[in-house]
């Protein structure tokens, strides 16, 4: 690796100030699983690495007034182990589990995964399907935006040069909303997603129909995307395998997958349809189990 400076930030303000001072010549070090790879290969003109990995204020998974707050520094392993997440958002734990391997899940953070803004990230779709918000700090203070607004383009977020992602919030209204995550890679271990998909919806118990369905897809467009037409198709429909399969087919038409060395666009479309259907089915199975559990 080439030489660079290193500062362990004392707090969020300090980190933001350092980022403001050095702009593009500074990089944030959280888990390091992406940053170090980048630094080892890139002919970077980097001046300074701002290590935020010890900032307690960016850690922790807890329930606050607004909903569930996941600190940006929560690692994928933290998310897998969190009893709150396991109970309310198992899909999120599944997504975390699908990332890398034990060693990288222990280092890699949720905030870091989102901030890379690679289309194939595994954290994005489930959070998007759960209408997550993100909070960030910059020179102007603290702000909050929907997660979808964070993603601009591959490897480009809406944060300014001094922006620092601080937390992810899943709104209270979506607590325990049945959801599921599906991923397809070229192998089972350490897989990168060729396509991933998340689905979340409430079930109208009387009509057994979809309420507020959400579908989010990864690796099939410049950023993680929602599939609004598929969602609209589902809203209010009775839950059947055929309806879920049709939603998958619609979602496939909404994506803009590319062909690359991993897979062709056509194959990715096939996968979107299948994974969307399976995410819906699996979320529905979770919803049914919940109902069964609650019946005395």
């Amino acid at each position, binding site marked *: 690796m080439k030489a660079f400076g*290193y500062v*362990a930030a004392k707090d969020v303000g300090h980190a933001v100030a350092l980022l403001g001072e050095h702009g593009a010549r500074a990089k944030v*070090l959280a888990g390091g699983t992406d940053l170090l*790879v980048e630094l*080892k290969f890139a002919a970077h003109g980097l001046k300074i690495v701002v290590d935020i990995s010890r900032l307690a204020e960016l850690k922790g998974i807890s329930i606050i007034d607004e909903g569930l707050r996941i600190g940006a520094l929560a690692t994928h392993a933290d998310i897998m182990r969190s009893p709150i997440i396991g109970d309310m958002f198992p899909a999120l734990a599944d997504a975390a589990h699908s990332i890398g391997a034990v*060693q990288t899940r222990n*280092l890699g953070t949720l905030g870091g995964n989102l901030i890379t803004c690679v289309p194939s990230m595994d954290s994005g779709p489930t959070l998007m399907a759960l209408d997550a918000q993100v909070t960030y700090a910059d020179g102007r203070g603290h702000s909050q935006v929907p997660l979808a607004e964070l993603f601009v383009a591959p490897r480009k977020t809406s944060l300014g040069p001094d922006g620092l992602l601080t937390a992810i919030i899943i709104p209270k209204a979506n607590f325990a909303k049945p959801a599921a995550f599906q991923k397809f890679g070229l192998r089972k*271990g*350490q897989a990168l997603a060729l396509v991933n998909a998340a689905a979340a919806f409430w079930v109208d118990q009387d009509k057994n129909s979809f309420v507020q369905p959400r579908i989010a897809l990864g690796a099939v467009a410049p950023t993680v995307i929602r599939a609004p037409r598929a969602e609209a198709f589902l809203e209010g429909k009775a839950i059947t395998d055929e309806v879920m399969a049709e939603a998958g087919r619609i979602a496939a038409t909404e994506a803009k997958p590319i062909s690359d060395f991993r897979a062709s666009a056509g194959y990715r479309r096939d996968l979107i349809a299948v994974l969307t259907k399976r995410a819906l089915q699996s979320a529905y199975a979770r919803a049914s189990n919940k109902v069964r559990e609650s019946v005395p």
Partner: protein
Amino acid sequence: MIDVTIVVNGETRRASVPPETTLLKLLRENFSLTGAKLGCDVGDCGACTVIVDGMAVNSCLMLAGQANGRSVTTIEGLATRDRLHPIQKAFEDNGALQCGFCGPGAIMATKALFDENSDPNVKDIRDALSGSLCRCTGYTKMIEAVQDAARILRAEAAAKPRQLELSK
């Protein structure tokens, strides 16, 4: 240069290194602990796996500065002078390693698994070792060795209270 103080295998070690030094480089070059290996340098192969504050990590993906003030266990820290760690013994007995280059990483990943789960099933074991690439073994004997080691460790844990009683 940055100064780091790290407890490595129970011993406090200090070094002054350039900021871009990885934990792996620090261990191998400054502390002469060459058990952790460099296989890919980007966190794919797991040959550099060490345990930092109880967690298995790729030491090639951690800066020395990040490890400052933490406790690191490497493969050199498992055995005592009189005794192999049961994982090391089981790997040896089962023929779990061939060229051995992935071994230190796989054994440390196993150690981290046992710290969390003393009775892992095959699926748990495969999951825990999925970050340790091995080109020689097909992992078959490695998984058997991990099962063996788990049995030994559980038996030892069960025997301990009894030994205490006996000594009373």
